[in-house]
């Protein structure tokens, strides 16, 4: 239930980020040995100093990033390449067959009326149905929107919590662990738990779409806040503590420091938390909705993701389900990209 949508931003960011912040990496034993880093994409061996024990025939290593193409592919390189290919083959096959192929099929089937056996082409009508004309779409899209709006608010609060922890609170490790406890709950159990609490203390709330949705969103953030606090705490831990000292000497208040000084430096982590939580709410809370109130009352707690399951596996309308899946995928990609572009610009500029 965590991390399913963990990486998109991280993935892209990895390509672009060049360490330029006053950050201090956590100490690995070998980091003192690490050569001056170039961009992450560099082939590390290209910057290694040639060792005298290398066999003759090895070209002199070139510093800098390029060079692989200029080199003759020596025996060692070839054997490395062969080994590399063989070793990465399993993961390539796994992802290729079980992720890429089904997604491509989903794109195909989204344009069809598919009952699992036969698929007849219907153009864009599945997409239209999913966004405009299907039953309950207004409520469904609204529910998704409510989640989307709730995420920045929640992440903001989580940042404050992480910052507060970082400023040196006694028992912070214990607190961090406590915050993380909800994270290890399965979505189904969270759903059952909140449903049970509602039935006991406010039974009519489950019959009311507005209150049901509110509790659902609260349940979602209750589960995920520990992860985000941890992420941002990890990021804060890489910050140079001198900043804080400097800021407080300059007379900056704590809140100002948190927002104006440390905040901008923490943007990668905040972005990360934002993106992953957003994508999680869009694509990975099936279990929560299922166990909480099965999308009800009416469409009160149904999101696009849950409606996909209903359309497909309850109603047998698999083309429509595939189309909804493609829409969700597009939204996921857009969300990742939107946050990545300013990040890329930020680091190009620095």
């Amino acid at each position, binding site marked *: 239930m965590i991390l399913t949508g963990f990486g998109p931003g*991280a993935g892209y960011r990895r390509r672009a980020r060049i360490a330029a912040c006053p950050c201090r990496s956590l100490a690995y034993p070998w980091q003192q040995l690490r050569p001056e880093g170039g961009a992450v994409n560099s082939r590390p061996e290209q910057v290694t100093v040639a060792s005298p024990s290398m066999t003759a025939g090895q070209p002199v290593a070139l510093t800098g990033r390029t060079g692989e193409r200029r080199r003759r592919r020596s025996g060692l390189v070839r054997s490395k390449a062969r080994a590399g290919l063989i070793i990465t083959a399993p993961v390539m096959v796994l992802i290729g067959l*079980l992720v890429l192929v*089904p997604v491509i099929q989903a794109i195909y089937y989204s344009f069809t009326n598919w009952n699992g056996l036969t698929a007849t082409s219907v153009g864009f009508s599945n997409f239209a149905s999913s966004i405009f004309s299907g039953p309950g779409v207004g409520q469904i899209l609204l529910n998704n929107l409510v989640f989307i709006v709730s995420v920045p608010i929640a992440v903001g609060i989580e940042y404050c919590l992480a910052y507060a922890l970082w400023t040196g*609170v006694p028992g912070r490790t214990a607190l961090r662990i406590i915050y993380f406890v909800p994270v290890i*709950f399965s979505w189904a159990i969270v759903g059952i738990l909140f449903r049970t609490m509602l039935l006991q203390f406010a039974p009519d709330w489950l019959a009311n779409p507005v209150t049901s949705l509110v509790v659902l969103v609260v349940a979602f953030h209750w589960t995920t806040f520990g992860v985000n606090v941890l992420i941002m705490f990890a990021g804060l*831990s890489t910050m140079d*503590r001198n900043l804080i000292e400097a800021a407080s000497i300059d007379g900056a208040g704590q809140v100002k420091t948190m927002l104006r000084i440390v905040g901008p430096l923490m943007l990668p982590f905040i972005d990360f938390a934002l993106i992953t939580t957003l994508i999680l709410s869009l694509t990975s809370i099936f*279990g929560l909705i299922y166990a909480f109130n099965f999308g009800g009352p009416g469409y009160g707690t149904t999101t696009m993701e849950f409606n996909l399951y209903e359309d497909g596996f309850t109603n047998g309308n698999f083309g429509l389900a595939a189309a909804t899946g493609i829409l969700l995928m597009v939204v996921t990609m857009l969300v990742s990209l939107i946050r990545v572009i300013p990040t890329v610009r930020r680091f190009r500029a620095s």
Partner: protein
Amino acid sequence: MTAPTSTADGMAIGRRLRPGRKLTVGALVLVALLALGPVSYMIIESLRSQTGSGWTLSNWTGIFQNLPILSGMENSAILAVGSSVLTVAVTSIAGFAFAKLPFRGARIVLTVIISTLTLPLISAIVPEYFDLARFGLIGTYLPTILVYSAFNAAFAVIFFTNYFLSVPDAFIENAITEGAGYAKIMWRIILPMAVPALVTIGVLDFLLVWNDLLVALLFLPQADHQTASVLLATINAGKRLHTQAVLAGALLSLVPNFVVFLAGQRYLLLGYSLGVDK
């Protein structure tokens, strides 16, 4: 300035921060109470008698008669352990290879893998289901494990690639030229060095799979193959169980999660910083 300005774990200590301290600590503690509140509710309710009055251990002593939670947890364990072991095994070596054993097209492959992070499971689940159904593989463990691993693999590959990129080549070059085979290098030298990373991914994937509902619900429909998640989520559709019994079952199914989490939690901080910073 000789006063300490940070603790050993990099925490900032500022002399000016004290005034708002009480409020801050108060807020943090309040949040902790909110986090634990529902959990305490679960525990308390599970000790309540099903007739509504009084306290009892019967929900716990009768837990295995009330609901097949043991079988559910066995199935969850098969999937979670199987998938996390498979993911760690396959992606750690792949990460090493991407970092240290370049081959033609590696960059493209890595790009593709990174971009699959944007492909959520829900978008692929319908064709995935039918692809497996066509070959009669619905209802079996191994294909389900493979599906889980496939969708967790991308993040893990990136994670391990990053991790191994931080390892200086000198280590590996020496070992290679001393005639060690790649398998030996990986087994003897690299993997021991990568234990924090292996544990991080192992723990994360274990939790992800154990806690999943959608895949388990669809791909293991038989009553005796239901995971704990599926069992608890569909319990209202089955026997009429009192909530106290259900909560006890849910708590029991959380125990492995707690254990795994506590065992691996000191690595998680490392894990998150690696995953994000890069």
